[in-house]
């Protein structure tokens, strides 16, 4: 029990440290899904290189490069990528989201997610 309490305390404590640079830079975790169907965990790692935001989805052996487009007038973000299904067939991913709680260290990116023929929603939170 105390381990769980400790984890919560540390998680909250760590979250109090901000990242005040480019709002998209960093690691974001959350999920996407459609309706009442299963939710699919996603991790997005994005970085501002001075000219553009680069990114990768689900880092590791199955990582997928992300193309990231940001409209700074509205803080809306478009992500697109090409993943593969279990048979190795290419599956396009398109997501349109909006940054919420922009000033918060644990800001969120929330919006719609289309993967293959499925349309749903997604929500990721910036980790620090």
């Amino acid at each position, binding site marked *: 029990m105390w381990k769980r309490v*400790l984890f919560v305390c540390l998680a909250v404590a760590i979250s109090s440290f901000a990242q005040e640079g480019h709002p998209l830079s960093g690691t974001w975790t959350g999920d996407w899904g459609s309706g009442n169907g299963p939710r699919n965990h996603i991790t997005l790692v994005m970085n501002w290189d001075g000219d553009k935001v680069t990114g990768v989805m689900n880092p590791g052996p199955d990582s997928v490069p992300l193309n990231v487009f940001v409209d700074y007038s509205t803080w809306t973000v478009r992500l697109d990528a090409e993943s593969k299904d279990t048979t190795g067939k290419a599956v396009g991913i398109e997501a349109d989201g909006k940054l919420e709680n922009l000033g918060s260290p644990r800001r969120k990116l929330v919006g719609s997610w289309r993967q293959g023929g499925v349309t749903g929603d997604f929500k990721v939170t910036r980790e620090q």
Partner: protein
Amino acid sequence: MKLARLHFMTIAGLAIFFVSMQTRAQRSFTTAYDSSRKVTLEGIVTKVDWVNPRAFLFINVKDSGGSISNWAVEFGNPLELEKNGWKSNSLKIGDVVSVEGVLARGEARQASATSVVLKASGRKIFTPVVARRPPAAAAPAPRWPNGHVRLGPPPGGKGYWGTPSAKVLVENIPAKPAMNDDGLLANIADIDKVAPFKPWARALYEFRQRALLTDDPIARCLPPGGPRQFQMPYGFQFVEQPELGRILVLHGGGNRNWRIISIDGRPAVAASEAVASYYGTSVGKWEGDTLVVDSVGFNEKFWMTAGGLPHTEALHLTERFSRPNLNTLRYEVTVDDPRTYTRRWTGGWTIQWVPDEELQEYFCEENADPAFNR
């Protein structure tokens, strides 16, 4: 097992401490108060909090219906008040006071006083009654035996640097934008006069301005990295240690932090090799009477000035310190962050010498902001 529990308690305690840092925040005046909402309160003093950097008195105020509510009234900085002869016991529990001031933002029962009057005597209290110490007499800058300008006090003397001529860093251009001491622009359309922003940085700066600087990391007691360290209340001091090849910068504000400037001839550090930190890795050298300091290795956890100027880990600062006379420090900083700004740009200000005094003790975490916490 006992050790594990002790460990747990320690870490949990630290976690709670960090959380409390957020809620016992040091907010800028703009963030905390709405100057357009004037208020007059009359009530009975129930408590006086003589806490640096802001003193509060609490009063029970009766409304027209007879209900009593407790208000927190901020009325000044204890260090400044004491310099003017006021003490924590200048006001007693049970005294009846009349307060004029402005209301806090939101629903909190809190005000910032512009005037506190004792009803019994009509005496105004907590107002400046002693003339401030005049600036030190004009004199040349003190020097070390090797001829270098001393950035600290003359031999045998004491003092520190306080009272910056500007509390916000903006680019040195003829038509500087109007803004208050918290860095809030008088006209949001003046954003492009502040610095040569890249689009994302401009949008983020505008967001912070429109949010009245609410998310300022200073409000969470995080250190004032970058140029902001020389704009904080309570000043700073240089401790020169030529025998160790370094200069320490001690901060009176910003939680009594310090910063090390190496002046032992080592080469400037590559940003990629520096551990990212609030004050960066600094290497300095004297160019005539000017100390030129090159700093890289900044983290992205701070605003480098009031008002919300963003930066990235690519930030590279070149600072120039000179002391044309005993009483004046000139500070100039060139900001080079190609991920945030379209070009290098420069700003600067002067800072006045505070003679015959030492830096006062100040810890942000100790700063209660009672009304926001109840």
